[in-house]
């Protein structure tokens, strides 16, 4: 709460079946405009298990598998889930547990407006599927199952974003100003002259050349404390984030004759440059 570094959204408990719980987060206006989501963390408060129940537990170091899925309600009313994170938690532990739900928020951002709230389905299952007698996973309880409305330990969604007006690219470079070390990531014109290439002579008929563009300049790096929060991220680099293909007409010899043929070469021209880090999530496209 009240953190300057990230926005926090309190969730509501909607309902549950045995070991599956549905959480809802109102997301409108939560993500600042012109910002890049670096990470979204779901924090659940795991209640301590009464000592007597722990005592009866066998095998001792029992764990439960907690799975978080993004749930999407389609226009026709049907549901669709996508797994976004899953990990083992120890029955013996208690306190805040964090799950990475960045992909769920990325999916949510791709929904058409008006967008439904972010729905996260949390399941608590046996550590290993199969006919084990242990019901240890039933001892894993998160706060929403406790004192309802107590405000204590409600599920929380932490949204870590970077302001693209500081940490983003600047579109096309200004052709009037030379690119220097201080130039902010931008797309620079680069013309490829096919007529100047020996191997293309009499073979590549069209185009005579094309604007391929290239990404130049540097990106602002997050300050130390933020970077330390995301150890899985490499430095931000200026890279092509959208590419376009290039159609080419070549001459092909077949059976003693020469005929023109069209070929499309993918990823040949840079459409857009962006600042991105190695290790950052490549958002999956939302299926229609």
């Amino acid at each position, binding site marked *: 709460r009240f953190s300057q570094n990230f926005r926090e959204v309190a969730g509501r408990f909607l309902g549950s079946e045995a070991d599956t719980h549905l959480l809802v987060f109102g997301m409108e206006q939560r993500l600042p405009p012109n910002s890049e989501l670096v990470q979204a963390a779901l924090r659940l408060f795991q209640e301590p298990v009464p000592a007597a129940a722990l005592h009866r537990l066998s095998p001792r170091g029992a764990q439960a598998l907690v799975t978080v899925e993004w749930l999407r309600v389609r226009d026709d009313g049907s549901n669709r889930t996508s797994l976004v994170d899953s990990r083992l938690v120890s029955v013996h532990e208690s306190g805040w547990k964090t799950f990475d739900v960045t992909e769920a928020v990325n999916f949510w951002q791709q929904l058409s407006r008006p967008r439904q709230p972010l729905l996260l389905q949390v399941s608590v299952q046996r550590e290993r599927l199969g006919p084990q007698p242990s019901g240890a996973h039933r001892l894993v309880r998160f706060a929403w199952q406790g004192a309802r409305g107590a405000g204590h330990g409600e599920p929380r969604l932490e949204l870590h974003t970077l302001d693209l007006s500081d940490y983003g690219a600047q579109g096309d470079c200004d052709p009037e100003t030379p690119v220097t070390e201080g130039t902010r990531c931008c797309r620079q014109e*680069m013309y*490829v002259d096919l007529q100047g*290439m020996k*191997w*293309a*002579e*009499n*073979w*590549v*008929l*069209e185009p005579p050349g094309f604007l*391929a563009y*290239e990404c130049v300049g540097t990106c602002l790096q997050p300050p130390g404390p933020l970077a330390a929060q995301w150890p899985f991220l490499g430095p931000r680099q200026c*890279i*092509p*984030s*959208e*590419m*376009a*293909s*290039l*159609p*080419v*007409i*070549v*001459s*092909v*010899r077949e059976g003693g004759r*020469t*005929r*023109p*043929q*069209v*070929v*499309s*070469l*993918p*990823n*040949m*021209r*840079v*459409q*857009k440059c*962006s600042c*991105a880090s190695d290790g950052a999530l*490549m958002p999956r496209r939302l299926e229609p």
Partner: protein
Amino acid sequence: LSEEQLLGRLLQRLQLREAPVLDRADVEGLAVPAHVRAQYVALLQRSRGDRSRGK
């Protein structure tokens, strides 16, 4: 995009091992038929719109 990369992509696309060596005579007077040019223009227009992902 280096010259080698460009040639490599074209050879890969055409499944060729090396660039064919064609004489001027092979292409002199070679006209591009309307349907081939139409295909080229259509791809050109579509390529301005397609947004394949970068790295």
